[in-house]
Every structure is written in C-alpha cells, then in structure tokens.
C-alpha cells in the first residue's frame, strides 16, 4: 500500500486556532443591523384544546411582532418523515412546551415578561406518559393505535428452536431512560428576509438541507429563495439534527412578518425542557440457549417512547432493531419492535440512535444468561461471537476479516480482567467497598442502512477559487467531531498537496451540494470517500489540461488551479454516491446488508460500589475497538473518550425527571453530567482493518462509544454486588433500595465505619 503523508497523522484541528483564541463565532455571537430578538410561547399542559389566547396587561403589545399558526404562509409542519410535527400548535397541543405563538421585540429584557404575560386557556384532554400506558391504547393520542412504527425482523425458525428439549430458556426485561444531549451551546437560529434576496437562515445545526427543506414547506418560498448557513456549532450529538428546523422556521416567520432580521437563542432551561432527547426504551428478551452456552434462539421485543410526534422515531427504532442481536451468531432470532406515542416533547436523535438502548439490554442479558448457566461471561461470548463468513441477525454475511474473540482477549488483558475478577471475588465479602469488573462486546453499523445511503444520493465537490485556493464543498457540518479536519486531510492526501493547502467552503446551501445529513457516523466513511474521488477528479483535470506536471508542490498546484480558472472559467470536480457492490437491503423484510460496514468493540469497566453512600464510581475504563483505518489519531481518541464519558453519564448520573410529560430538572444544577472529577482514566485502543469502500479505509466511529459503557458498567456492578440492575440511569438511591435489603454489611467492616 502506498504510504500516506497526511491521513493517519494527528494534524491540528482545522478551525482549532480560532477556537482556542475565542475567535470562533457561534450564532449567539452574531448580529445583523436592525436585528430584533424572538421568543416562544409554549403549552403548559400535556394535551388539550386551546380555548383562548389573551395578551395580558403591562406589556406594550403594539411594539411586538406576533406570529401564530395563522401567519404561516406555507404548510404548518416541520418536514421530516411523516410530516406530523406542527411548526406552531393550531387549535390543540399534544405535549408540554409545544410552541404556540412567537413574539419578537428589540428589547431582550422585555421579551421574557411578554412571554409570561400571554395567557392561554386550555380544555384539557387525557394524556399518556409511558410506553405501558400507550400500548394499552385506552387513550388514543396518535393515529389509530398510538404506534408510530413497528418492525418485524426474523431469521431462522424461532418457535421451533424454543420447542427444542435441549435448551434452557432465559428471560429478562430491561429499561433505559431519556438522556439530554446537553451540548454546552444552546440552540439558536437567526433569519433575515427581503423580497429581493429571499430568506437566509443562520444557525447552530447539523443538517443544513433538513432545515432548508422545512423552510420551503413552512414559507412556501421557491427553492432558490431560501438559503441556510451553518455557523460554528458548539456541540450537537444528534440534538441539532431535527430541532433546528423548528427554530429556523420560527425565526423565519418572525423575520418575514416584522421585515427585520430576527434571532432566537434558547436559554438552558428552555433548551432542556422543549427540545429532543434520547428515546426511553424497554426491551424484553427471551433466549433459548444450550446448557453449555451456545445461543440457539432469541425472541426480543424492543419498544421506544417516541414522544408526541413521529419525527425521527421510525429510524431510531430501525437502528435499535437491527442492533438488538448484538455481535452474535444467532441461528434463529426474531425482533419485534414498536415506537409509541406519548404526550412528551418528541424524542429525537442522540449519538447511537437506538443502538445504545437495544445493546444495553442485549449485553446485560448476556451476563445474566452466563450467570444462569454458571459459566463465565467471556466464555458465553467466546462460544457465540460472530466470525468472518457467518451472518448477522439480518442475514448479512460478514466478509470483513474480524477476530472478535481475539479482540475480546486483548481488551480483557489490558483491563487486568482475570486477575481483578478473582481478587474482587476474594476481597468483596469483607469489604464495604464492593469492587467489580464487567464488559460488553458490541458493534455499530456505519452510515445509513443500505437503502438509506442510496436514497440520500449524496453529492460532494472539490473546487478552486480564482486565486487557486482549494476547497471542499459539502453540507457536512463541523460541530466538534472533526469534519473539517478529516475532510481536508482526505482532500489534501488525494490531491498530493499540504493539509494547509485545503480549506472548507462555507457551509451555505447556496454554495455547497447536498452531501447528506451529518449523522449516523457517515461523514468520514461515506462523505470522505466522495471527497477522495472528487479530489482525484480535480487533480486529473489539471494534469490532463497540461497546467500541472506530474511532480508538483502545493504552491505549484495552486498556481496551476488559478491558471486553469483564468483560462476555463472554473475548476470544480463533483462526486456522487455509489453503493458498494453487493449491498442489498430489503426494507420490508429487514433482511440483507443492513450497513455497508460495522465497527466492533469490547469495552471493560471497573467499578466500586460504596455500601455506605451507595454511589457507584467507575475506576478504570478500557475501550478497545476496530473502526477501520484511523485517519487522525488525536480526533479519533477524542471521539472515543468523549463518547465513553457521555455514556458513563447515561449509565450512572443523567436522569430526566418527568412530570406529566414535562422535564422538571431542566437545569445544569439538577441534571447531572460528568465533571472532570467524575470520570476514570479512559484507555483507548484501536485495531485497524481498512475498509475498502471507506475513505482511506475508514469506517464510522462517532456513535460507537455510546453503545458499550452502560452495559459494561452495569455488568461490573452486578459482579460487585451480586445484584442484577436492569435499568439505567442507575442512581445511588436505586442501589440503596436494593442493597439495603439484600447485602449484609460484614460485621468487621461495620465496626470500621
């Protein structure tokens, strides 16, 4: 293989200097002449008819721009999959915090007072607040049966397998809670409108063309009259995939009515209460396994709480369903899944997108199976982990050279697993600080499903400016994960020039092609590959024109590009997605090549459960993964460490407290994410098996680290305490309730207290 110069090296983040200088400009840092500020009036009830809206005294209402559903020139929905999500409530509300009307005014201090002075009278309707309530269908709040989407995925003959006499049947139920993305930059969008220039919307967002599509629907404007620009975005994690379309539409409506630029910035409390979170889930597993630990069949029911509108729930459910079998070779498996409506703000995208939920259940269940059979958790995995040539739960043949068993051994070795497991077993009976070590083995599909990437049909460009500066043209966004850096590395490598010789074109829908949404761990693998081929095309054009000789410096390349443009007008090379060969996915039967590639991982957690405070802390964490080629070690390690940290929060700290569909702990003081003192050393190890259809061998990486930590930690807690906790978040009070009952405090240790 040719030796690469730039790919695989830890070049500095492209926009890093601006960020460390504090010079990077986020949406709240921007302003336009004459700009006013927008605010949102929201529902106070989970479900009901709006009887009357009254503008209370003490506010100069004539100075305000007021927008209701009646002011929407186009269609009153945010375009996603089923188009059932209203831009502004019209007549009825279906969850607390649903947007009802919009206000704009120049005075930032007057706006909150005005919002508080709008009085809305409701005729309440019965509401639904859990999967269990929704599935009884006693109160119908969506469609005919409260079900947004259901899937049936089946391989082999599950019923026949369960009827076999040589199997043991093991059952379990598992639950995961909502999780707030908690990007440190709150949501915000800004809009300006004039008849001549049309509508321009700037914002903190992941998917410029999603916002663009929604704006076309809401405003009724022609495509060329709507422009969306992503500005520096302070974290997203999926939380800025769908909701920015809502805020962008709100800012646009206010700007169109007031004829002034309008900016809407949410504060933390509004952001946490009103915007999307990770879907809560419930999984029920029934497994047939031989006494020596060979998995024979799985019957899995996987359910999500989708909130009040369908938004992205069907695709989150899809990913959760496909991942529910884990990295195991199941001769027979059936997954039945449903996403239910509840009167909660719609749940949405969050790193992992359904997989952390279903994999939590699967990996907890594996440890419980091992325990029931009296074999070690690693032995159960050894007997069942997928091998090259075997098929996944969807019937996809694994062609990649994988060695999950070997990788598991290496991860366990790095963690000192065997020695610690034995030592903790010895020491725990006489200690008040119970120690445990546990792990999870898992996979994460990179990119959209086989059919999804075909549907996206992404387009990418590489061009040169008249001065010869080389630019990458994509709608793929940077929000901390490293899009700018990785795509510039790929382009520079492909063109044979320096990393500093390539830059990103502004992420503006009027300038860049639609390279698809920045989600699903697809940017490096899928978009990166397209950047590679577009760059090769541009280089070929220059070579063929004679403007460039076979051997060149970065400066010579840029001069040749400038010379080409002065002669031919422009220099641009485009590349469109083509599915790798033999990728076929049946969306109806859920069979076939679900994803073009999978990342594989084994995560090991070491914990202490304190029997005085009942807190569980993670003392050490080993994250071992195979993600294809690592294109930038610093960024890749950063992705894994950051994902593991979020997932430790998911497992042990981050609890959304609900009261009739309303998040009541919507502050950083009472929704607890990990601080610098709450995390163990996170030790990251990569195995690199290049994937031929990804950019320079890369696969997806961003979501993977969200999947494994929660089950690894809870498996470790089960080892420490002998108790099975099958839900997250697991807080000290949950541990207290169980351990106070079951774990006898040893006399010697009690005296020591």
């Amino acid at each position, binding site marked *: 293989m040719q030796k690469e110069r730039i790919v695989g090296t830890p070049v500095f983040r492209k926009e890093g200097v601006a960020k460390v200088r504090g010079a990077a400009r986020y949406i709240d840092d921007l302003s336009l002449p004459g700009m006013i500020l927008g605010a949102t009036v929201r529902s106070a009830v989970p479900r009901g008819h709006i009887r009357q809206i009254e503008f209370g005294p003490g506010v100069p209402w004539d100075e305000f721009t007021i927008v209701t559903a009646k002011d929407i020139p186009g269609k009153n929905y945010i375009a996603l999959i089923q188009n059932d999500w209203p831009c502004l409530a019209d007549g009825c509300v279906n969850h607390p915090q649903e947007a009802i009307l919009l206000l704009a005014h120049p005075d930032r201090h007057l706006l909150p007072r005005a919002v508080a002075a709008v009085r809305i009278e409701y005729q309440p309707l019965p509401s639904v607040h859990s999967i269990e309530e929704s599935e009884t269908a006693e109160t119908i709040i969506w469609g005919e049966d409260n079900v947004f989407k259901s899937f049936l995925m089946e391989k082999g003959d599950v019923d026949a397998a369960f009827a076999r006499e040589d199997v043991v049947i093991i059952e379990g139920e598992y639950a995961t809670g909502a999780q707030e*993305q908690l990007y440190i930059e709150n949501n915000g969008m800004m809009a300006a409108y004039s008849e001549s220039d049309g509508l321009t919307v700037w914002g903190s967002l992941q998917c410029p063309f999603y916002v663009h599509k929604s704006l076309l629907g809401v405003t009724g404007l022609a495509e060329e009259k709507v422009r969306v620009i992503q500005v520096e975005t302070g974290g997203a994690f999926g939380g800025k995939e769908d909701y920015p379309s809502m805020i962008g539409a709100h800012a646009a409506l206010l700007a169109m009515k007031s004829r002034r630029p309008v900016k809407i910035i949410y504060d933390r409390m509004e952001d946490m209460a009103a915007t999307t979170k990770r879907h809560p889930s419930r999984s029920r597993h029934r497994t047939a396994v031989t006494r020596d630990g060979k998995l024979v069949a799985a019957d899995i029911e996987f359910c999500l709480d989708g909130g009040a509108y369908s938004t992205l729930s069907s695709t989150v459910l899809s990913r959760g369903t496909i991942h529910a079998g884990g990295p195991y070779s199941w001769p027979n498996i059936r997954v039945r899944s449903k996403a239910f409506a509840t009167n909660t703000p719609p749940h949405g995208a969050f790193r992992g997108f359904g997989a952390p939920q279903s994999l939590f259940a699967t990996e907890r269940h594996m440890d419980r199976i091992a325990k029931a059979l009296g074999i070690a958790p690693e032995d159960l995995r050894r007997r069942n982990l997928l091998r090259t040539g075997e098929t996944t739960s969807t019937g996809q043949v694994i062609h990649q050279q994988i060695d999950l068993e070997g990788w598991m051994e290496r991860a366990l070795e790095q963690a000192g697993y065997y020695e610690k497991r034995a030592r903790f077993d010895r020491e725990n009976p006489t200690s008040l600080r119970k120690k445990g070590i546990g792990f999870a083995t898992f996979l994460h599909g990179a990119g959209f499903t086989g059919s999804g990437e075909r549907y996206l049909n992404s387009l990418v460009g590489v061009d040169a400016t008249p001065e010869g500066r080389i630019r990458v043209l994509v709608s793929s966004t940077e929000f901390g994960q*490293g899009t700018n850096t990785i795509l510039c590395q790929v382009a520079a490598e492909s063109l044979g020039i320096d990393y500093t010789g390539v830059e990103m074109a502004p992420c503006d829908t009027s300038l860049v092609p639609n390279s698809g949404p920045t989600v699903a761990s697809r940017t490096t693998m899928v978009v990166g590959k397209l950047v590679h081929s577009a760059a090769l095309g541009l280089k070929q054009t220059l070579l063929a024109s004679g403007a460039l000789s076979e051997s060149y410096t970065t400066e010579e390349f840029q001069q040749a590009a400038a010379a080409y443009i002065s002669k031919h007008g422009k220099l641009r090379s485009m590349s469109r997605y083509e599915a790798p060969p033999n990728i076929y996915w049946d969306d109806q039967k859920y069979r076939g090549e679900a994803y073009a590639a999978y990342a594989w991982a084994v995560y090991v957690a070491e914990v202490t459960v304190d029997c005085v405070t009942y807190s569980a802390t993670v003392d050490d964490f080993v994250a071992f993964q195979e993600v294809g080629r690592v294109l930038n070690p610093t960024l890749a390690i950063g992705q894994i460490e*950051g994902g593991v940290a979020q997932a430790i929060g998911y497992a042990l700290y981050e609890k959304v407290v609900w009261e009739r569909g309303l998040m009541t702990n919507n*502050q950083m003081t009472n929704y607890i994410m990990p*601080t*610098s003192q709450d995390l163990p050393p996170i030790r990251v190890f990569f195995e690199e098996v290049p994937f031929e259809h990804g950019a320079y061998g890369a696969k997806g990486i961003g979501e993977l680290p969200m999947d494994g930590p929660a089950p690894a930690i809870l498996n470790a807690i089960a080892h420490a305490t002998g108790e099975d906790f099958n839900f997250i978040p697991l807080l000290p009070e949950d541990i207290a309730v169980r351990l106070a009952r079951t774990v006898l405090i040893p006399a010697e240790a009690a005296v020591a207290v």
Partner: protein
Amino acid sequence: MTERTFQLHVNGKDRTVNVPPMARLLDVLRHELELTGAKEGCGEGECGSCSVLMNGELVNSCLVPIAQADGSTIVTIEGLAHNEQLHTVQRAFLQCGGAQCGICTPGMILATVHLLKKNPHPTHNEVREGLNGNLCRCTGYMRIFEAVERAAIESTTRTEAGVAE
C-alpha cells in the same frame, strides 16, 4: 433600571460602560465591549463557559453584577494571545486536541491559566480538581488533562529559558 458608569481594565485597556448596576459582567463583555469569547452555557454558574479572570481570580461572569466588577482588571480569552503568538495554554489545547466543539474552550483555557498560575506543577488530581467548575460535553476531559499537563511542562521550560509569557 437606571444606568450608571463603570470603569473596567479589560485585556490591558481601560474601558468605560454605561449600564444598569445589576447588568451581568458576561453581558457587558459580550454586548457592550463586543468580546464574545466568553459564552453563556447555563446562566447559573454551573458550566463555566463564561469564565473570565477578575483581578486574577477565576469567576463565572454570568454571576457577577457589573457593580461588583467596577474598577477591576479583567482578562478574557481575547486577552491571552500576543498578536499571532498563542499563549502556552492555547497552544497546548490545540496540540493535544483539548478543543472539540470549542464552546467550553475559552472558559477551560482561562481556568487552566488560573490553575497554573496558582499551582505551576499540579498533580493529575489537582488538574481534575482545578477544572471541576468547567463542563465539557465533547472530550470526556482526557485531552484537556493532557493539554494542561503539557502546558505546565512548557510554561516551566519557557520560564527557565527566560521567556516572558
């Protein structure tokens, strides 16, 4: 609220502002002085993304009324680099991958500057403790710890070589 006149010494320059006495230092910096490096993450002193140095102490500027800051010396992220020359801590964050989305970065860098000023050779646990008022959702802090430790080493080397920071 009635406006009053306040004096600040910000990033080496004397500045005068006319604002209500309860105006937040964060808003004065961002709106009056156009120093947008300090960010609002939570507005209640939890996240530290609005951190600045006030008379050498690290403060959450969202919790400081301007009346309390009158006459004080303020250093914001914009005041750290000398023209094109990054501060040692800024350079270490760049090199170690301590900045991802960048929104906590200004506060995190100022917290590091503050920590290293008080304690030029912090242990790993002192680094963790020194940054516990600044939340980062991207990095899991590990790259940040590495940046702080690298900056500590480089600051010492620079001081020994007689280079002024």
